[in-house]
């Protein structure tokens, strides 16, 4: 039986003698493996990104949006607050409104919240303090509002004017004292919640009074632990539905309810579904590339077998067995595959790094990517080599030697 070391030396020598051909042959594998590696890395980076984003809200976050006006009132807020497992709940309303500071006016998201919002959304305060439910005309500013939005920086104890538009077309302007400025945080767009850096928070009661309404757009809440979030959110859902007169048989039917409730676990799950679908799609494309690549290797190996027919006869005359010949040719095809795999892995890592940097997500390279690229290419090389190697091994030595 042929020594694998020598089989490697012989196979490698034969690949080296046809560098251009081998490189072109490997190209299919390079592209396929690069696609798989880049795909896995980009998927992992996005997952990490979303998880981090949601993590800044706390992992036990529940958010409820009303689907219509006049659904949510204080009764519902109290009901949520009193659900076992809930540690804080806030009502919210929101309007994009003109905000004036020192005669400059800007359109800014104004968010009415309860004092619990600080705890629920992990709103870190850099200067001053957060609003309380007793406050009236005070505002807490996102970092960007205070430092970038206006010509002059706004600091605590400055005053701003906020103009709120009512449904009846009239508008009302009030002067607000800046009570606090938030610490800068990464985006939280994933939840559909406000980007805290460019939001002004005011007491919900004040905003509702200016809006001349008593209902709320929704609630945010937080549970005591991440483990209980699904259970508690189900309980909140059940209580809300019952209180709003949703028939018991419709409790599992989201369309029968005038609101939507999400929790962190569900949001992550939905993101996973999206990323998984994306991953499956690209994996299919990569698979096609790999199949094409392996057919390329097989094709070249068949050409090689024909070209080296007399060599194969010679090897047989000097005592090489069928298994020896099979090992030699499969080795050659695996080496082409692995070279393609190594180049493809490097290309995939570099490519995904560029894409991830461009999209602004932190690149994540799971360690197993290296092995994944390697094993795929060994496997593809192996599969591609079987048929040509068998063909070579089964050549009749007399005929093969006669071949010129």
């Amino acid at each position, binding site marked *: 039986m042929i*020594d694998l070391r020598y089989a490697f030396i012989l196979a490698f*020598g*034969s690949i080296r003698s046809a560098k251009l051909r081998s490189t072109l042959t490997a190209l299919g594998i390079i592209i396929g493996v690069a696609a798989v590696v880049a795909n896995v890395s980009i998927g992992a980076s996005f997952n990490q990104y979303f998880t981090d984003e949601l993590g800044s809200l706390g992992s036990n976050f529940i958010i409820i949006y009303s689907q219509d006006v006049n659904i949510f009132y204080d009764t519902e807020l109290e009901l949520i607050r009193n659900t076992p497992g809930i540690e804080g709940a806030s009502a919210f309303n929101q309007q994009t409104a003109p905000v004036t500071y020192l005669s400059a006016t800007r359109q800014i998201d104004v968010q009415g919240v309860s004092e619990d919002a600080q705890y629920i959304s992990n709103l870190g305060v850099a200067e001053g303090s957060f609003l309380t439910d007793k406050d009236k005309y005070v505002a807490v500013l996102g970092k960007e509002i205070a430092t970038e939005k206006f010509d002059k920086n706004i600091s605590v104890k400055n005053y701003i004017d906020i103009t709120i538009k009512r449904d009846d077309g009239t508008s009302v302007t009030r002067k607000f004292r800046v009570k606090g400025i938030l610490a800068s945080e990464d985006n939280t767009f994933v939840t559909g919640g406000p980007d805290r850096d460019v939001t002004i928070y005011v007491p919900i009661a004040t905003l509702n009074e200016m809006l001349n309404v008593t209902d709320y757009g929704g609630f945010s809440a937080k549970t005591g632990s991440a483990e209980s979030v699904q259970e508690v959110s189900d309980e909140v859902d059940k209580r809300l539905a019952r209180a709003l007169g949703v028939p018991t048989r419709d409790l599992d039917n989201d369309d029968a309810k005038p609101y939507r409730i999400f929790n962190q676990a569900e949001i992550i799950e939905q993101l996973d579904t999206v990323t998984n679908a994306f991953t499956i799609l690209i994996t299919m494309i990569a698979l096609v590339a790999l199949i094409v690549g392996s057919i390329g290797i097989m094709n070249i190996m068949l050409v090689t077998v024909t070209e080296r027919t007399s060599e194969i006869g010679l090897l047989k005359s000097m*005592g*090489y*067995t*069928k*298994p020896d010949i099979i090992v030699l040719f499969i080795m050659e095809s695996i080496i082409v595959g692995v070279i393609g795999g190594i180049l493809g892995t490097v290309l995939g890592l570099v490519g995904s790094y560029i894409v991830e940097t461009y999209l602004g997500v932190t690149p994540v390279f799971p360690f197993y990517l290296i092995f994944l690229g390697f094993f795929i290419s060994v496997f593809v090389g192996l599969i591609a080599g079987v048929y040509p190697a068998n063909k070579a091994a089964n050549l009749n030595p*007399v005929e093969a030697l006669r071949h010129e």
Partner: protein
Amino acid sequence: MAGCNVQSPELNNVIDIQGLKKSYFLGNLEVPILHGIDLCIKKGEFVAIMGPSGSGKSTLMNMIGCLDRPTGGKVMLMGRDTNAITDNELAELRGFEIGFVFQNFSLIPRLSAYENVLLPTYSNTKDGMDTSGRARDLLKLVGLDDRTGHKPAELSGGQRQRVAIARSLINDPSLILADEPTGNLDSKTSVEIMDIFSDLHKKGRTIVMITHDPEMEQYVDRVVHIRDGNIGNN
């Protein structure tokens, strides 16, 4: 019908061919090439096989070298019936007991002279043999100790054939089979190659050589004539 008259238990009969028949089949049509050949070659003999083109010399040599199986009769090598062993055992027999030398040198162009000589040992190595040392010794024996690193393309025809002879000896085989080893060489180079074979013969090697050249008769112990697949008279 018999090959060797005495069935020596000491394996003195390197080749013992009895009633060997070989036919090729063109579709269903049987084309007989060898019609029942008996041949005995003893240890240490240097035998030339001569005959017209197409008479079946190479076919006979392929049978002796276990590259093909007979249609009828049997080939005994070193006392072993080659009909009775498997393909893999035949390959091993070729690797250890037979060294081939071909007309067209048959070297691997990608490998150096030294690596070409070593090539048979990658698959079959005799226990305890210093293969690399032996490869160098053999290249020295054929006068190529200054050409070990050369690729076949960098060697002359005669030098390539010397490499092939060195390669045929690497596993210290019982039998050298040479099919027109000087067929592609000029007469001066042919003499040099024949001197090497003579030398090997004097050292006790068993050599069977196919040739067209009557000049070669002077080097050998015995000439076997083949005509239309039959052994003729000496």
